[in-house]
């Protein structure tokens, strides 16, 4: 209103203008009427308790109308994609357009509702800050154990075990731990309550261990074959199809046990059926470094030539090969969201890659030694092991990790490590045992009980197991982009070109024609054959004619541009003209 006055557009009654003018000038002296507390607050005493009632003025109501607007950044997190471009359906099909619009509105609503639930999350992420002048890297595990509450302090512990070097694995809900020692020691326990499930010596070397879909079953890659043990340590299966295995991975949504072997074979085994999905040689030699991408269930393998290859059970060739290091790759890990991949090599580098757009290196860090292990946490902390030292970095993706966030010196060379899901714990397995380190800010504080629940009851586990088997994703849906199944199957340009090429190089069709029987000597074998040939040739000729026509129209489209340049009739003396330089096409 004040603006209107200044611009001389006060077309309203003079009274009104005066009023607004007064407001503008007096605002700094008096509180406006609606801000006075007496006008909208009503206090009553009932049974000795004052009951206060607030009534909102019309202006306030307008200001706070509707629900709170969701932060666009949060919406971005829960976004299900930008949706279909409405224009594509054109103006003609208004019904379809309307349907699409309605559907999209629903999707947006779902996104918004999901984003709103963020306020309901109860737990907060871990934090560690050091006093000024000191670094968090100087804080030792002992300091942390002294500083935190007693239950958390109990989560950091050390186990001295004689059968090392060890391999270890947490369950997806972060509750149970399995340890496998090279000298045959196999132990599984609930590491939070420290309750031992089983402890046996398999009397063979163990190369890797892995949980299956629940803590009831685990797989161990032993000297010759892969064995499956149950919670009591009973050997349930001996998988002789999987021999000389070095690395085990379990795809929980596909129920596939994936192995890589000494002879360079990759295999996928469906554990619900006990059947092998596929097994094939990679022809890349011994595969010791393998991890799964939890976003798309593709296996990533590291090789001595410095390459990282990605494999699915649907293709016997690598779906992707990337040269990551000039020296042998030593460790790979993909973060739980599947966005980033970390690789380390003997060239002492740790490189962070965009896992969805491989080939794009995001960051690289130089380490004092080549790191033998690398692991992402749920909150994208990166742990790296250098001999017997474990270093944890923060903000590796944004490039702010010039100094390590935490360091720890283990009493033996670190052979395996993993961040515990939904906990601020890093488990490290060494030559001499196992220790769990408290790394504040590592884990996702709020779990989803329908996906993985650390507090799962027995009946809950049974229920979840049945539901998980029912939604077992078919192995043929494993692709680099896991959303392929939900997308419109638009043929690529290459496919279109191939289809056209097929049209051009036609094969004449085989015509199956049996001549009818005719009377009066016309159905002798020679006559019949003649008739048959006639029909056959006629039809084939027609087909080819049509194909040729089609080809001509196709070719005329493509050759039009070339012929236009040479429209002028050539003259006799043209040959003495300087030759035109052929312009090189620059392609971007």
């Amino acid at each position, binding site marked *: 209103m004040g603006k209107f006055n200044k611009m001389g557009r006060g077309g309203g009654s003079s009274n009104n203008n005066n009023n607004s003018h007064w407001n503008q000038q007096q605002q700094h002296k008096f509180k406006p009427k609606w801000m006075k507390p007496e006008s909208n607050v009503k206090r009553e005493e009932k049974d000795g308790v004052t009951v206060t009632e607030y009534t909102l003025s019309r202006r306030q109501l307008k200001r706070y109308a509707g629900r709170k607007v969701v932060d666009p950044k949060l919406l971005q997190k829960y976004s299900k994609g930008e949706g279909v471009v409405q224009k594509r359906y054109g103006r003609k099909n208004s019904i379809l357009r309307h349907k699409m619009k309605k559907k999209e509105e629903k999707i947006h609503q779902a996104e918004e509702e999901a984003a709103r639930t963020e306020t309901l999350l109860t737990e907060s992420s871990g934090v*560690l800050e050091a006093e000024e002048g000191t670094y968090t890297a100087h804080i030792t595990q002992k300091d942390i154990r002294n500083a935190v509450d007693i239950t958390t302090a109990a989560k950091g512990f050390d186990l001295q075990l004689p059968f090392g070097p060890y391999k270890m694995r947490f369950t997806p809900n972060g509750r149970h731990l399995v340890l496998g020692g090279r000298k045959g020691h196999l132990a599984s326990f609930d590491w939070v309550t420290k309750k031992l499930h089983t402890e046996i010596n398999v009397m063979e070397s163990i190369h890797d261990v892995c949980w299956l879909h629940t803590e009831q079953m685990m797989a161990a890659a032993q000297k010759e074959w892969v064995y499956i043990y149950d919670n009591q340590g009973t050997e349930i299966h001996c998988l002789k199809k999987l021999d000389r295995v070095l690395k085990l991975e379990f795809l929980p949504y596909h129920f596939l046990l994936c192995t890589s072997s000494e002879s360079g074979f990759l295999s996928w085994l469906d554990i619900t059926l006990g059947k092998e999905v596929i097994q094939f040689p990679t022809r890349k030699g011994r595969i010791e470094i393998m991890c799964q991408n939890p976003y798309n269930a593709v296996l990533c393998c590291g090789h001595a030539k410095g390459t990282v290859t990605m494999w699915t059970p649907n293709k016997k060739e690598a779906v992707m090969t990337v040269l990551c290091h000039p020296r042998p790759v030593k460790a790979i890990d993909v973060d739980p969201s599947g966005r980033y991949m970390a690789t380390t090599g003997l060239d002492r580098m740790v490189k962070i890659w965009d896992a969805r757009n491989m080939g794009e290196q995001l960051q690289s860090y130089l380490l004092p030694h080549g790191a033998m292990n690398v692991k992402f946490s749920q909150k994208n902390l990166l742990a790296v092991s250098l001999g017997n030292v474990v270093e944890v970095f923060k903000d590796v993706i944004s490039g702010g990790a010039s100094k390590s966030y935490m360091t720890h010196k283990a009493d033996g060379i670190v052979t395996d490590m993993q961040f515990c899901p939904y906990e601020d714990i890093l488990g490290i397995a060494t030559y001499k045992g196992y220790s769990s380190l408290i790394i504040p800010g590592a884990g996702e504080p709020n779990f989803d009980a329908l996906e993985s629940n650390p507090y799962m009851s027995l009946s809950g586990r049974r229920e979840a197991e049945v539901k998980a088997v029912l939604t077992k994703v078919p192995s043929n849906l494993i692709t680099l982009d896991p959303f392929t199944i939900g997308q419109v199957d638009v043929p690529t340009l290459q496919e279109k070109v191939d289809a056209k090429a097929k049209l051009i190089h036609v094969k004449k069709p085989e015509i199956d024609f049996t001549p009818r029987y005719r009377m009066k000597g016309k159905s002798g074998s020679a006559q019949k054959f003649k008739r048959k040939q006639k029909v056959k040739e006629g039809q084939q000729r027609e087909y080819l004619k049509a194909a040729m026509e089609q080809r001509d129209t196709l070719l005329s489209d493509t050759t039009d541009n070339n012929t236009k340049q040479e429209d002028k009739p050539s003259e006799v003396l043209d040959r003495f003209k300087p030759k035109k330089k052929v312009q090189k096409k620059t392609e971007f």
Partner: protein
Amino acid sequence: MSIKKINVISRNPDQYLRETKRDIHKVQRNYDPDLHPFEAAREYKLALNAVKLEKVFAKPFIGSLTHTEEVSAISRHPSRLSCIFTGTVDGEVLLWDIATQKRQWQVQGHNGKVWCIVGAPDGNSFFTVGNDKTIKRWSLEDSDLPIDTWLCDTMVTGLTHHRYRQEFVTCGQRMLLWDVGTKAPKTSYDWTTTGDRSDATTTCVKFSPVQADVFASGDHSNNLVLYDTRAREVKKLKMSMRINSLAWNPMEAFILTAASEDYNVYSFDIRNFDNKSRVVCVHEGHTSAVTDIDYAPTGREFCTASFDKSIRIFRTTEAHSRDVYHGKRMFRVNCVLWSTDNKYILSGSSDHNVRIWKAQASEKMGILAPREKAAKNYNEELKNKFGHFPELRRIGHHRHLPKHIYNAKKEHRAIKDAQARKEANRRIHSRPGAVPFIPFKHRSVVGLQDEIPSTSGFSPDQSGGGDEDDEEEDDM
């Protein structure tokens, strides 16, 4: 100590575990997409499961009501949801309670076949039409004598009642409009275009439930005729085959669906009756003549009875049937009825039975718990979303058919192919344009007959059986 601030995830189990065994389990949710990978693939698998479960639970047959003779007519009770009337070929009229599957009332209504049973819209009575040239009106109280009886001089094969007025139309050798209060017909609708009277016998007649004055009929000379009681405006469409039964879409007043002798069902848009776009959809699938048709009260679906011993359910917008029901002992189906609560389909067949089917083959009967309902809705949505995937479509469309239908289908396919081939050959070897391409929709429609028939009006004082007859004969 150089720690300034420290916070480590430390959950209190009491907040995550139920307090007592009688409590429900606590379920913490976090909708962060990173914690829910493979969303699309898992949804696809769920859709696949939903389709498979649908097939597992597809058991549509509920029960049968046994008669002593072939069932020829079936009708809704005018006021009670769970009751139906049936009529047999030996003239019996029966009242059944569907819930208990028990007969409640029975009467020898006619001498000969009961052609048609129609409930009066006032909810107190119903009409039956018999092979004995009589129309009877019965009270809903259990009396064995009709309230009213109309005697006709010609054969009557069908009846339809006006939705609001006390009028009804009968078909047969003549189309007559009757007033419930009088004993003689008010008007007759006849036409001059067909020479032979017996040829012009009408097989079916139906009042529109929405445009209450409009009604349609189908006759032995393959005509589909539209009437209006106010204007006597008539539009007559000649088809290539006879129309056995008619039904109006209760939700879209302009859609008229006709069950034809040529195995197909045709949906017409009566607004476009004059032009080419009158046929909205041709519903294929039966392998023999379609005898009866009835719409679901939602107007989205209809069911058809056929001589091929099966009934089919069609969606109004789709050319092929959604489902087909058949039984080992079910013989030719004469009449079909979709219940008013949209849950059941009743079919009367010549094996002396009325069969009760579920309208949705895999639907669970009884009251659904809220979670069951939510699961059902979710599965429906998944099927919508992924239904076009080849694997889902194959499973969802698979039906086990009896051998005779399977073989007949194959045979019809071969015949159709042969005809198409022949036509194509003819087109190749003829002058361009000499063999025009006629879309499948228009093939069975011969065309609109332009003549507006002369209608002989009856004034109430002019009523007299003999006179009418004379007039009629002159007209014909």
